[in-house]
């Protein structure tokens, strides 16, 4: 009996992990080139879920249109946060620390506005029955929604990889990540690219949020947890390595879910944190990252 249970948990882990991979990539897309620790990313995550809710349940749009709407609105919101808060702050000569502090403040403000608009009760989004009816494979079950989640996450991740490698914009993003000063010198319009990274990162986090919302519903507080997963996966994968972050996200999902076998599910984030702690102690550069400098030994 234990064997199939473990296998079922592994499947659940892969479903969760594919979304975690998206989370990690979405955070890294913004963090790597702009060096902005965008804490309000947690709010963008929650908002995209609530946008979906508003479009699908509030205004009765068809589900695919609502999903697309949620993703695009979230992308625009990310750009807006950067343009209204971070960029003016940067231009006024503030350092990295001030921008980070402001991102905490943005998180708090957005979170509270959300509470005023949508209240704190949990929300669920009505999904066509077929999506949630489990398909049995022997003793194991998978829902079509799970399959759709994994397929979408995989497709999106592949698209991002192609985009980063082969398009002009993707190359520009990587150039800025590598050396922002040099990027300016060779004539890359860094401000425009910055806006693109915020749009892309926010849209990516929205994809993860949308699928989570369809499956598990919404609560105003889910953002912090998601951000923790994103950040931990980025560290474990190695900062600056997109494949590393995606792989680490997948791994984190599997580890968390296998952990449920022995550990109650409310300790999920403790498992996440333990993984982080182990990596910070023994391998701070993650799987594929560059060596992290220490100031003193």
């Amino acid at each position, binding site marked *: 009996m234990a064997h199939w249970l473990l296998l079922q948990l592994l499947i659940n882990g892969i479903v969760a992990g594919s979304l975690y991979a998206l989370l990690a990539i979405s955070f890294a897309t913004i963090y790597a080139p702009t060096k902005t620790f965008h804490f309000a990313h947690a709010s963008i995550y929650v908002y995209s879920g609530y946008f979906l809710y508003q479009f699908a349940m509030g205004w009765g749009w068809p589900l695919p249109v609502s999903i697309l709407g949620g993703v695009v609105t979230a992308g625009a919101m990310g750009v807006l946060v950067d343009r209204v808060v971070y960029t003016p702050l940067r231009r006024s000569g503030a350092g990295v*620390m001030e921008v980070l502090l*402001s991102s905490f403040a943005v998180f708090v*403000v957005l979170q509270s506005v959300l509470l005023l608009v949508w209240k704190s009760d949990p929300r669920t989004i009505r999904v066509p029955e077929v999506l949630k009816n489990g398909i049995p494979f022997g003793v194991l079950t998978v829902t079509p929604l799970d399959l759709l989640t994994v397929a979408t996450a995989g497709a999106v991740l592949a698209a991002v990889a192609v985009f980063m490698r082969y398009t002009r914009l993707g190359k520009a993003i990587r150039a800025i990540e590598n050396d922002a000063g040099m990027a300016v010198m060779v004539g890359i319009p860094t401000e425009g690219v910055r806006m693109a990274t915020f749009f892309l990162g926010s849209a990516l986090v929205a994809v993860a949020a949308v699928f989570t919302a369809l499956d598990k519903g919404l609560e105003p507080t889910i953002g912090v947890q998601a951000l923790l997963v994103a950040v*931990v996966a980025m560290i474990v994968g190695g900062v600056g390595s997109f494949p590393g972050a995606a792989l680490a996200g997948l791994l984190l999902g599997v580890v968390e879910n296998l952990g449920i076998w022995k550990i109650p599910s409310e300790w999920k984030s403790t498992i996440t944190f333990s993984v982080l*702690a182990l990596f*910070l102690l023994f391998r701070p550069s993650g799987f594929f990252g560059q060596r992290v400098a220490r100031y003193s030994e």
Partner: protein
Amino acid sequence: MNYFFYVISLVAIYGILTVSLNLVVGYTAILSVAHAAFMGIGAYAAALLLTGWGFNFFATLPVAMAVAGLVSGILAVSTLRLKGDYYIIGSFGFQVILYNVFLNWIGLTGGPFGIRNIPRPQAFGSNLRYAILTLGFLAVCLWVARRVGESPYGKVLRAIREDEAAAASIGKNVTRYKVSVFVLSSMLASVGGALYAGLISYIDPFTFTIHESIFLLALVIIGGSGNVYGSVVGAAVLIVIPEALRFFDVPTTVASPIREILYGLLMILFLRFRPKGLLPERITPGMVR
């Protein structure tokens, strides 16, 4: 009048929390989002020892400080030796976990129901007396913070803030300074938490969230980072103004988001237009900048 002294106590307690956070954020430029977790450790340690073990209030403080010091030391050693954003990430993760521990370790903490009927020390039962007690602790905390700030040790902290590599290059063990100030700050925060538990007489996990940590950061920034008196002013302003909301007929479900929006916006505006805060850091004579 009783309510007035209650607010005074609250201001003093948040003063202690903010001053202690300022040691880390203002003096040393280490950004921690786990301060509420250390406040929580103090509050839970005091509450558990008081209600379950019959400890005297003042006897709980060394225990609370020891636990907070130990835990913060482990966190600091593992994250502060790395450069970059690692300590932020470490403190963020730690904050989330500690909240989960408070919430889910029901056998110890009472989980979401929290701990009720936390007694105050006998000699300080009334709000007036409790206000005097908390102000006394605030005074001690300010004294410690000033002594730290003006000592050679404090000057090294500021040197680390301005240029970490330069501080290391003149032979200062940067990691040791960062870890020690972080531990000191967390121990002071645990005292603030213990006093908080005594004041409210009831604690639950929802007080010690990351929102509270960010609130404390906002108090440091708005008061003036690097100026410990500014921290007290910041705490006074941001505690008293939302308390005023009580006199209007605003339901709590609306009042608490409004409070958060208020300090969030203030924090953004201060960072943008007055990054030195209400009381800017004063440079004492003999301090090289």
